[in-house]
């Protein structure tokens, strides 16, 4: 009988407290959003399931938890804390990305820069709220709306915040259809939303091959700390475009990125153990993440309106909202908002140009913030 009671006292039912239960509910919400609502299912499903796995209470010292040395989850989590998975995800992203629309209309790249304002505004806000500079930088990067970049920078600067930062970043990416359209509508008039973009010119193969080479050199020379992300990103894109490594590009954009996404999502989810995750800091991170993402969207739209003051051929300011690097969610949302005003206004390809420059912009921001924080 004593053995039976001893066994019972080691079960999750006995060890559970309210924090585990709250996180399990959060895990259910993620799984519901991913499966029933189909909001970013490839991200939310692994993270949601990881939250369930990470919040099963266990007897400490068995080497089971993600924060315990020698546990399987701990080894898998090394890919997150070392920045390995984000780099691999960027390799796959590069092998998927078509820069033709960006090459056809390079000026749209400025919208990708403008949308990064949210990052620096949030950096200041987080510092004002009492976060240390390294923590503030990790929170601020949520404004880039790029999960892997947020995880990468947080792993380097504030590893104890990986869970909340990653969950906040991916949550807001999944909630793009809820967050972005009201901001877009609020900041633009109907006439502006009706602006049609000129047809994009055809881009030659030579341009597409040269672009990743020039881009990696220019951006990494300026912000060397972004090499792990942009180096892999442009390498993946070169594999895709050079025309002689199609097999490698195919592997990078399928098996490799899928494997990294599964492990990244599952371990990030599992890192949200209730007793570690549910702190006032996490609540603050969620609040600041929402601010960062909203300001990033707004600054992209406002900058597009400012550009229109100087351009002969006006651009549709909705495109500014796609300057955040949530690929392709925000581009799709811009396209849908444009279509809701004019069913024949197709903005998708133009929005993808802003979106891909947003990826580059947020990775550069991560590099800049990392280099600023060295020595702090």
């Amino acid at each position, binding site marked *: 009988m004593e053995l039976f009671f001893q066994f019972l006292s080691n079960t999750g039912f006995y060890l559970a407290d309210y924090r585990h239960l709250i996180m399990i509910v959060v895990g259910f919400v993620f799984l519901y959003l991913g499966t029933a609502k189909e909001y970013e299912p490839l991200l939310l499903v692994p993270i949601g399931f990881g939250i369930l796995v990470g919040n099963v209470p266990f007897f400490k010292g068995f080497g089971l938890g993600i924060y315990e040395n020698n546990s399987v989850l701990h080894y898998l989590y090394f890919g997150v804390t070392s920045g390995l998975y984000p780099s691999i995800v960027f390799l796959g992203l590069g092998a998927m990305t078509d820069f033709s629309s*960006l*090459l056809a209309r*390079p*000026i749209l*790249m*400025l919208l*990708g*820069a403008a949308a*990064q*304002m949210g*990052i*620096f*505004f949030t*950096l*200041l806000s987080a*510092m*004002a*709220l*009492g976060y*240390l*500079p390294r923590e*503030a930088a990790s929170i601020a990067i949520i404004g880039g709306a790029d999960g892997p970049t947020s995880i990468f920078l947080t792993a380097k600067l504030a590893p104890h915040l990986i869970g909340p930062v990653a969950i906040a970043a991916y949550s807001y990416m999944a909630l793009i259809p809820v967050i972005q359209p009201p901001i877009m509508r609020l900041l633009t008039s109907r006439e502006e939303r009706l602006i049609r973009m000129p047809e994009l*010119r055809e*881009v*030659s193969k*030579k*341009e597409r091959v*040269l*672009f990743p080479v*020039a*881009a990696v050199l*220019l*951006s990494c020379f*300026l*912000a060397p700390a972004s090499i792990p992300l942009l180096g892999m990103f442009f390498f993946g894109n070169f594999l895709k475009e050079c025309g002689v490594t199609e097999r490698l590009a195919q592997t990078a954009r399928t098996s490799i990125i899928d494997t990294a996404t599964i492990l990244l999502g599952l371990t990030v989810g599992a890192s949200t153990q209730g007793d570690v995750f549910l702190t006032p800091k996490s609540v603050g991170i969620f609040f600041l993440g929402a601010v960062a993402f909203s300001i990033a969207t707004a600054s992209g739209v406002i900058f597009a309106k400012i550009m229109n003051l100087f351009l002969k051929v006006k651009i549709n300011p909705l495109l500014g909202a796609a300057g955040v690097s949530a690929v392709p969610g925000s581009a799709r949302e811009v396209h849908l908002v444009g279509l809701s005003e004019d069913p024949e206004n197709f903005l998708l390809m133009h929005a993808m140009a802003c979106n891909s*420059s947003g990826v*580059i*912009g947020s990775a*550069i*921001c991560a590099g*800049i*913030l990392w280099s*600023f924080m060295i020595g*702090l």
Partner: protein
Amino acid sequence: MYGLEAISTHNGWAMAVAGVIIVFAALVVLSSTIAQFHKILNFLDDRAASQNDKGLQKACGAEDFPASDPLRMQNLAVSARQFRLISDRLGEPFPLPKLLGLAELSGLPRPHSAINDLLKAGLIAPDGKGYFFWKQ
């Protein structure tokens, strides 16, 4: 420490301003560079094409032959070789209808258009008596 004091103490203002400037500078430089890509590539392609044209003009001896793209020049050279083989059976000077007939019999693609191109390029020239000859 909270508020503006915390921002100032941690050098936040300088970080934010410098960060915005650097990210804009990076993307402006990148966008200006890629905006020049197609112009540079077109310029290099045009140069290569004009060098090919000059080479072919020299070979053909037709100084007034208009510059065109390298692919067209290559096609012209191939056509010239094929029609030369056919016209060898006719001797020189040769009547164009016969050359056309033989080209059709030989199954050459678009013989009318090909002969027209050879005439325009000056590779085949009229002898003034209703017959034609190869200009070199």
